[in-house]
């Protein structure tokens, strides 16, 4: 006998699809089939079943080999490392639930660490922009029900958020968008002819690194002012056409991604895109939304914010919270040699930081908490494998539009494996003893 679990939440990307169906064995120990998920999401669920999974914490030995240790020993090492460090960095948090993030914050507070999430290499610059200019946004259902102009700027949902267009943005028939795709005009701004760009009604092939100029030109076009003949590789006529197309919409939505957050101008690209959004609200209705990457990077920002007041890149070393990306952000902390211990959870800086920011990790006390073997675990002193969040344990997560959705546990983790939260509680309790905190 098998059983089907419905309304399962996919713990891969910020789309946080919650309509997945999973077939499990009667004893709840085996996950047999995944339906409705995209190919990445399916793989995420199915990989939990891999027979070659690391199930025990491991310490790196001098010769490069690994030695299995118990969770107790792993927690001892982690607590001792954090207790001793003058300025530890606790990075990641985006692939775990809010409950674990909360325990992590307690640990960070006691050890006066720097804490950061993967926004550091993802939408951190979006957050900076939002702090400078605000953010008129909406939930994804608003897009589904109302949007007749959909702009993808520097993002490629066909690859990065595979079900985004079918669930929310392009194809669904909503309350005021009964004709689905036919109700909408799709515009893509990308220096490459991406798979998403190929679907668009209009593709503005912006010169890479000149999004700021193009967005500036759109604002000028809205106001009917003078424009140079070509901006960022796009003729002014085409820019004015695009401006008119946006203004003529009844509900415009701009989605944006790494193409703008990681290109030259970074936060300014987002800042001026938000200015464009604000401008459009003088003519019609317009919202803008970051295409958040990790399935719970948004949640990490939320928990940081209500507990410490800032959404990422927080420095608690002085005993109170401070924030200034450029100083307190992970890449800068690592590259500037500001920290002396590295704690990673729910992310893989080894694979996703520039190598110059990875090298320091290999030269300091380091712990990597991750179900997978990763480049980060590969250069850390201790690797603590844990249960897959959203598959083997539940917990709250926040979708890219900040909507909270409680993830479900669908299958048991391998015998003896702990969840992030359980391991963090062990570390916290040990740390409290070491620091003499009640």
């Amino acid at each position, binding site marked *: 006998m098998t059983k089907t679990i419905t309304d399962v939440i996919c713990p891969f990307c910020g789309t946080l699809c919650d309509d997945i169906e999973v077939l499990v064995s009667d004893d709840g120990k085996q996950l047999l089939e995944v339906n409705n998920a995209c190919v990445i999401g399916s793989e995420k669920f199915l990989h939990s079943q891999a027979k070659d999974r690391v199930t025990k914490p491991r310490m790196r030995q001098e010769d490069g080999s690994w030695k299995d240790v118990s969770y107790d020993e792993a927690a001892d090492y982690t607590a001792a490392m954090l207790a001793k460090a003058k300025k530890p960095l606790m990075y990641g948090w985006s692939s775990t639930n809010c409950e674990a993030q909360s325990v992590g914050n307690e640990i960070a507070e006691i050890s006066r660490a720097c804490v950061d999430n993967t926004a550091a290499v993802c939408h951190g610059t979006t957050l900076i922009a939002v702090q400078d200019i605000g953010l008129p946004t909406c*939930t994804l259902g608003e897009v589904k029900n109302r949007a007749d102009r959909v702009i993808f700027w520097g993002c490629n949902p066909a690859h990065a958020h595979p079900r985004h267009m079918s669930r929310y943005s392009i194809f669904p028939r909503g309350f005021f968008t009964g004709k689905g795709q036919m109700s909408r005009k799709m515009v893509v701004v990308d220096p490459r002819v991406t798979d998403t760009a190929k679907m668009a009604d209009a593709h503005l092939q912006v010169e890479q690194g000149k999004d700021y100029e193009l967005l500036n030109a759109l604002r000028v076009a809205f106001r009917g002012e003078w424009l140079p003949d070509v901006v960022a590789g796009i003729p002014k006529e085409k820019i004015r056409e695009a401006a008119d197309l946006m203004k003529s919409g009844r509900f415009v939505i701009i989605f944006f991604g790494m193409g703008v957050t990681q290109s030259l101008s970074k936060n300014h690209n987002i800042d001026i895109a938000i200015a464009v959004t604000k401008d459009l609200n003088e003519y019609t209705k317009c919202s803008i939304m970051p295409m958040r990457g990790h399935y719970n990077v948004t949640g990490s920002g939320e928990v940081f914010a209500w507990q410490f007041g800032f959404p990422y890149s927080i420095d608690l070393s002085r005993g109170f919270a401070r924030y200034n990306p450029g100083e307190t952000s992970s890449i800068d902390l690592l590259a500037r040699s500001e920290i002396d211990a590295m704690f990673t959870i729910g992310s893989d800086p080894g694979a996703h930081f520039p190598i110059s920011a990875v090298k320091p990790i290999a030269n300091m006390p380091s712990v990597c908490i991750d179900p997978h073997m990763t480049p980060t675990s590969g250069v850390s002193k201790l690797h603590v494998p844990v249960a897959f969040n959203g598959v083997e344990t539940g917990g*709250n997560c926040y979708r890219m539009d900040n909507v909270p959705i409680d993830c479900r546990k669908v299958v048991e983790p391998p015998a003896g494996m702990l969840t992030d939260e359980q391991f963090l509680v062990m570390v916290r309790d040990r740390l409290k003893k070491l620091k003499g905190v009640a």
Partner: protein
Amino acid sequence: MSEYIIKNGHVFDPVQGINGDKKDIAIKDGKIVDKVGSGAKVIDASGKTVMAGAVEIHAHIAGPKVNLGRIYRPEDKLFSCTPTKGMERMGGGASIPTTFKTGYEYAKMGYTTAMEAAMPPMFARHVHEEIRDTPIIDEGAFPVFGNNWFVLEYLKNHEIENTAAYIAWLLRVTKGYAVKVVNPGGTEAWAWGLNCLSVNDPVPYFDITPAEIVKGLLEANEYLGLPHSMHIHPNNLGNPGCYQTTLDTLALAEGMKAKNKFGRESVMHLTHVQFHSYKGTNWGDFESGAKEITDYVNKNKNITIDTGNVTLDETTTMTADGPFEHHLTGLNNLKWANCDVELETAAGVVPYIYSPNISVCAIQWAIGLEIPLMMKDPMRCYITTDHPNAGPFTRYPRVIKWLMSKKARDTQINAFKHKDKVLSQTSIGSLDKELSLYELAQMTRAGPAKCLGLGGICGGLKPGMDADVAVYNFNPDKPVANPDDIETAFSRCAHVFKSGVEVVKNGEIVGTGNKRTLWVNVKVNDNPQVMRDINEKFIKYYSMTQANYEALGHHFVPNPYALEVDATHV
């Protein structure tokens, strides 16, 4: 559980009609009792003021827009974050404090219960996570209904029973406390960039007016017999001339009577009245409409209000009145955040500086004080700052100072750059009334508790009630030498007990109490049509599944306290 006896304090408890008498307050097993054993711990309150724990009826302290405010205002925390200290976690934020700081600050001022004034239902999990992480104080949250598609569709045909069944369902799945209405119809219009500025402006597409929404929700609220009345932020907030819309809204409650088992007598609570009491036609001839509004409220006993006092600070405005925030960013050009929520509501956030050098701000300050000073029944008018909209809640002691001391008000008036304008456009200069401690207890304890349907539980010191007690370093027998002493006394309590646990001593946090989440569990008759409608909306229009929308596990509300309502009899 420890027993306590608070001895020889000057007790102010409108619930029992105690007006400053020297009385002992006994605490046992979390409740106020008649007497305790000789082993009870003695708290010497001689020369001090003793009141029930205060009740916050309207503040934005938990949830998505509050956190958006925190996220997008790092400058609100610059140089002001506080370290871990004893039992206290780190804190930060002047106008939008972190959850920990929120709990500590309320408790230190003697508040033990607070209501989050606007919960977008779809974000209930977020609101509850923050409530869970706000220590000490009991909290409830009001889901917003005034722009909800179900409500608009049912009330278009005046389907009260269906509206009520939907309200019951939503309160249950969101663990909500009351029916909140914000800019009825206007926020749905905002989804298209529009607004409803009067009670008769039609809502685009839905073919209903704000008046019909308000009337229908008033009826549904009494049909169910909920603990709290319908709680409304009416249309046309903050505009010169808006007092007329406010009067039109209040008139919708005419002739209605409260029906409930919780001792509530009002049917409509109109919130942050200060923002809705403006006369004039533009910012130039802007003037106070406090008299017109309070005249009406004084006459109509089924109305309660709270003030929304401007505190003259740099703060962060945030409201489910999306179009208002868009309007505001156009006025001050500061950063604008907005979030429209599918089928339900919206929210906007804009920083704002209430400068004493700007005449409009000074007039707003005066209107906020005129209202409670003009109210004849302090049991129907409650002190708020609509935190953080008119100012942070941490300024309550200052507002209390202004209300209790004409001298303090005059000092402030004289400090305004446009003093003459304040005096000509308001009547603040001619109001001599100074609030008594008894009236203060009515406006901050007994009144709001009764209005929330919590009158039997908190807001008073009657035996049997929760032992929420605040002891202030304020001697009512002594004349106030300096009005600032009032502010100092009400800023940091000598003692605070929350459900019988000492949580504050000498202004410091000494306990975290047994923080509860208050919600209202309504039983209604089975209503298959409403269940079908809900099911259909999720399949067609929501972006999440009904099962996931309804999921709100124990980890979100670890210590719930449900007020049970049986509406099956109707």
